[in-house]
C-alpha cells in the first residue's frame, strides 16, 4: 500500500469514525457513552416518541425545513434564470451577493440577523429562522438550478414560443419539466441544510426550538445522551438518503439536458 493511499484511509477514518460511533451507542444498552458495550437494545428509540418536547422540536424542524426548501428553491429558480439567461447591468454583482453567505461565517450572519430583527422590533419565531435559513440555502439552490439552466438549450424555449405558446405556457410545458430534476435536487439539499442547521436556528428561534437546538439543550443531562444518539442516528440516515436522492436527481438532470445530442 502506498503512503498516499494510507494517508487517505487514515484521513477518512478520522473524518467519519465519530459519526460511526453514533449508531453504535444508539443501540447500546447503557447510559454511559464508553466501551465496552453493554448489549443491544432498541430502548432509546422507543423512548424517543415519549418525549413531547422532542416530538415538538421535530415537528418545528420539519416545518421550518420544508418552508425553507420551498422558499429558497423558488427564489433560487428566479435568481438562476436571471443569472444564466438574462443580460442586465449589475448581474455579476447580484450573483456575487447571492453566493456571499457561502463564505461568511455563519455566526456573523446569525448575530447580524439577530441585531437587525431586534432593531426592527420583530418577534423571534419560526419565520425568523426560515428567513435566516433561506439566506444561507439560497447559494446552494441558485448554484444547483443555475447549472440546470446552463444545461438547457435556449433554443428549446424559443421553439416553444415559435410554436405559438406564450412565455408562461412555455415555462410550464418546456422549461419546468426539463428543470424538474434540478428542482428536486435543490429542494432536497436545502431541506437537509435547514434540518441540520444549528447556529442561525439557535440565535433566531423563539419559543419553539428546532431539533438541533433542542438536542444541544439536552446534552446537559447525561442520562438523555443515548436518546440523543438514537435521534442522531435517525437524522444521519435521513440526511444520507436525502442527499443521495438529490445527487441522483442532479445526475438525471444532467443526463436529460445532454441527452439532446446523445440520441443517435
Amino acid at each position, binding site marked *: 500500500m502506498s503512503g498516499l493511499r494510507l494517508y487517505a484511509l487514515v484521513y477518512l477514518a478520522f473524518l467519519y469514525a465519530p459519526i460511526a460511533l453514533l449508531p453504535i451507542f444508539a443501540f447500546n444498552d447503557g447510559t454511559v457513552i464508553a466501551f465496552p458495550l453493554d448489549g443491544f437494545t432498541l430502548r432509546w428509540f422507543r423512548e424517543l416518541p415519549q418525549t413531547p418536547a422532542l416530538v415538538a422540536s421535530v415537528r418545528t424542524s420539519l416545518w421550518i425545513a420544508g418552508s425553507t426548501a420551498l422558499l429558497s428553491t423558488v427564489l433560487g429558480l428566479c435568481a438562476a434564470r436571471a443569472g444564466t439567461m438574462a443580460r442586465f447591468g449589475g448581474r455579476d454583482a447580484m450573483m456575487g451577493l447571492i453566493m456571499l453567505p457561502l463564505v461568511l461565517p455563519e455566526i456573523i450572519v446569525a448575530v447580524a440577523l439577530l441585531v437587525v430583527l431586534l432593531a426592527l422590533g420583530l418577534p423571534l419565531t419560526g419565520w425568523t429562522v426560515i428567513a435566516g435559513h433561506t439566506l444561507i440555502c439560497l447559494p446552494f439552490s441558485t448554484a444547483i438550478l443555475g447549472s440546470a439552466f446552463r444545461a438547457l438549450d435556449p*433554443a428549446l424555449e*424559443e*421553439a416553444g*414560443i415559435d410554436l405559438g*405558446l406564450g412565455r408562461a405556457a412555455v415555462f410550464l410545458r418546456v422549461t419546468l419539466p426539463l428543470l424538474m430534476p434540478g428542482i428536486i435536487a435543490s429542494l432536497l439539499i436545502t431541506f437537509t441544510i435547514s434540518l441540520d442547521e444549528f447556529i442561525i436556528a439557535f440565535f433566531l428561534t423563539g419559543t419553539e426550538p428546532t431539533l438541533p437546538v433542542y438536542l444541544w439543550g439536552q446534552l446537559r443531562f447525561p442520562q438523555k445522551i443515548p436518546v440523543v444518539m438514537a435521534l442522531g442516528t435517525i437524522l444521519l440516515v435521513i440526511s444520507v438518503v436525502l442527499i443521495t436522492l438529490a445527487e441522483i436527481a442532479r445526475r438525471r438532470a444532467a443526463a436529460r439536458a445532454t441527452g439532446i445530442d446523445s440520441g*443517435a
Partner: protein
Amino acid sequence: MPDQTNTDAEAAPAGRCPIIELSGAHKHFGDYHALRGIDLSVGAGEFFSLLGPSGCGKTTLLRTIAGFEALGAGRLVIGGRDMAGVPPNRRPTNMVFQSYAIFPHLDVGQNVGFGLRRSEGSRAQKAVRIGEALEMVGLAGYERRGAQALSGGQRQRVALARALILRPDVLLLDEPLSALDKKLREQMQAELRRLQRQVGITFVLVTHDQEEALIMSDRVAVMFEGRIAQLAGPQELYRHPASRRVAEFIGMMNFLPVIATGDTLEIAGLGRVPRAGLRSAAPDGQGPPEAGIRPEMFSILYPGEQTGRRTAQGTVRETAFYGDMTYYEVILDGTERPVTISMKNMPGRMILSPGTQARIAWDAESVTLFSAAW
C-alpha cells in the same frame, strides 16, 4: 430550372406576390452593427436562401423575421402585416432550429403536436394531423418513439413536421443541414426541395454552404458584414457575380492580372482581347484590375485539335483526379501563378501528367472583369 435573370433582384420574382418585405433593416448588438441596411422581398412559395460566412448577419436576419430579435431600424412586413411589436408566437412563421430543439421530455407525437392549440379539434383529429405530418417527412408510425432515441436526420424530420403541421406562411430554417454528415446532407437537400414544392410554403434558409444554397434555392441573397452583396438566382449568381468577393465565395474562380491599353485589354497568360463586350463586376475599391474565369470555362485541347475559340499555351503543374472530373493546375506561359482548370473525364480523353505542355481554349464571354475602378 427557371430562368433567373431578373434585373431588379431585390423585388420578388415576377408572378409571385411578396410574402416578406424588409426595408432599411438595421440591427445593433451593443457596438456591433449586425445588419446594415437590408432591403429584400421574398415571394410567396419561394425557396429563398441567406448565404454568407459566419458573422455576416444571416442568422440575425432570420431571427429578426422570426421575431426573436427586434429591428433597430427599418420595416418588416409579412403577409401584408407590419411585424413591429408582434411577438414570435403571433407571427405567421415557424422555425427549424440549428440544434432542432426537439423537446427531450416528450415523444415524437407530442413534439409534432406541440403547437396545435386546444381549440384545434379533438384529440383524434389532432392525432390524424400528427400522423399526416409525420408521413410527409417520412416518419410514419413514429408517434410513440422517445425524442432521445432519434438519429440526427430523424430529429430534423421531427423539427420539420412540428413546424409544417402549423401551416405557416413562411418556414425559417437555420442551418438545418450543418449537423448532418455529407451523404445524409445531400439526401436531405433533395428532400427539403421536394417538400417545399409539395407544401408550397415559402422557405427561408440560412446557410454558409454555397453549394447547398445553389442546389436548393430559387433565389439567394449573399451577405457580407450585415449587407446584401448580391441577390439573384443560382445561375445568375454563379455566372455573373456582382463583385470579387461574391465570385470568390460562390464556387471557384481564377483571377488573372489585366493591363489596360485603350480599347484593348491584355490578360496575363491569355493575351489581348477587345474591351468592348467584356462583362464587368461592380467596382469594389480593392485590388488591381483582374480577369475572372471559372475553372470549367477553360478547356484543354487534344494535340492537333481544331477550335474556333481563343487559345493560350501553358504547362501542367499538378493533376488531381476526382473520378468524374480532373482538376489541373496550369501555369500559363508568361505567368507565375497557376490557374485551375476542370475537365470532365470522357472516354478516350487522357489525363495529362504534370510537366505536359497544354493548349488551352477559352472565350471572352466567360470573362468577368474585377477592378478597383475602371
